[in-house]
């Protein structure tokens, strides 16, 4: 399956290990990722916060390149990038005025064709859990995980059209397919504080702290994420939150890689702040 791939800015620096593990897992599952040629930043929170037309335009340019590459599907692994691409696509398809604006900005036809999917969605809906389960060689037996979706992966449902916005289950199902156990907890779809990490850190310490405490209370040994912003907010600031959990925050693609037989080092698991290695070793997984 050929799929356009939008890595986004984080995956080229802070979340390098997410990129690494994504490429390995996709290759293993015969998903041929074609990075969008000369892609630009999706504008993240900044663009839509102060300049709506720019926010749509930035994602429209990326979608337009996908269309020119003759690919009918694009996947992003950052929940933020995914949400921006999906929102822009929705607006271009449903708002004739915005479609005209985009045409004018890009000086080419509006990119109405490409479907936008988060990698988790692509894996669950296109590859399928059965096919993934058949490739598991090292089941993640004994790991008790909190599947964390955050906000932008499933919200708003009217635009994202994936899983359930209140009680999402896709990541839980995937992790169980890999042999792990997932906990029932209240904060799986709460916000981590998103883009405020630098500009108003208190918001991240407050919201992210609640997520961590909830996961801990539910008995999780680690939190599994599908977004580089959630990862860094939850992983790097536990001390500042006054929490001494040292709870590992692991990308779902890293755990998939482990179950598919790759080594922790190949998946960049050693790059995470609160190292999951002792936990994985205790279960015979690293």
């Amino acid at each position, binding site marked *: 399956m050929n799929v356009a791939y939008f890595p986004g*800015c*984080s995956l*080229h*620096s*802070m979340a*390098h290990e997410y990129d690494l593990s994504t490429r390995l897992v996709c290759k293993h599952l015969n998903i041929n990722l074609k990075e969008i040629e*000369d*892609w*630009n*930043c999706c*504008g*993240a*929170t*900044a*663009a*839509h*916060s*102060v*300049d*709506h*037309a*720019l926010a749509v*335009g*930035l994602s429209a*340019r990326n979608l337009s390149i996908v269309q020119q590459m003759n690919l009918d599907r694009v996947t992003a692994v950052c929940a933020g990038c995914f*949400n921006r691409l999906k929102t822009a696509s929705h607006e271009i398809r449903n*708002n004739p005025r915005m479609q005209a604006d985009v045409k004018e*900005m*890009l*000086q080419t036809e509006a990119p109405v064709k490409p479907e936008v999917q988060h990698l988790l969605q692509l894996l669950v809906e296109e590859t399928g859990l059965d096919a993934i389960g058949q490739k598991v060689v090292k089941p993640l037996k004994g790991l008790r995980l909190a599947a964390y979706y955050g*906000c*932008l992966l499933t*919200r*708003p*449902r*009217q635009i994202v059209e994936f899983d359930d*916005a209140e009680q999402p289950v896709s990541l839980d199902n995937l992790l169980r397919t890999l042999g792990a156990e997932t906990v029932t907890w209240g904060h799986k779809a*709460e*916000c981590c*504080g*998103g*883009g*405020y*990490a*630098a*500009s*108003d*850190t208190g*918001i991240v310490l407050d*919201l992210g702290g609640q997520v961590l405490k909830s996961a801990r209370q539910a008995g999780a040994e680690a939190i599994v994420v599908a977004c580089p912003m959630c990862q860094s907010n939850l992983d*790097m600031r536990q001390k500042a939150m006054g929490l001494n959990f040292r709870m590992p925050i692991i990308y779902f693609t890293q755990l998939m890689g482990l179950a598919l037989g790759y080594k922790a080092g190949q998946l960049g698991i050693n*790059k*995470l*702040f609160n190292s999951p290695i002792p936990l994985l070793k205790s279960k015979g997984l690293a």
Partner: protein
Amino acid sequence: MNATTSPVNQYFKALQLDETDHSLSQELLQNCGIEIERCLECGKCSGGCSNAHIFDFTPRKIVQMIKVGDEERLLHMDALWCCVACQLCVDRCPSGIDIARIMDYLRERAVARGIPATRPTVELFHNLMLDQVHKIGRVSELYLILNYNLKSGQYLNNAELGPQMFIKGKLNPFPARVKKMDKVRRLFHKKPGQKGEVK
């Protein structure tokens, strides 16, 4: 505290219904397709809001203020600068009112009118980020943070994370840039941080 300026008093001040102005709701309908009149006042938006506990006005109140055209208070409110845009209010609204889009619309209007952000560092961060996109088409987290600390005067902000991030290879000092930058710059109808009327 002066009785007329107390925040509690302001919050509960009776709305002057004889002075209502519908221009803002009409604008939102025309520019964003948002039908503010469909609000049922059920409060699901405020009940779910990630940051209602620090907002000066809850989402439901904000919708009511739009109904009566209380534009000045809307453009000056702190909620514009601490909304996390988590989309929960949008997701839960039974009337399909896109409140997150309303927040963006109001913020854009406030910026255009030169109304200072209640949290200046938040606005600064947005502008520095967009400035990078305008320059190289992408965001380099390393240079964004360094630049932000410099411009905000918070020189040691997050500095404790720096060494470990460096050791873990999480900071890339050589960010790739977009080749066809003219295509990206065309998307900017104004320079980042520039004041000017909303299109």
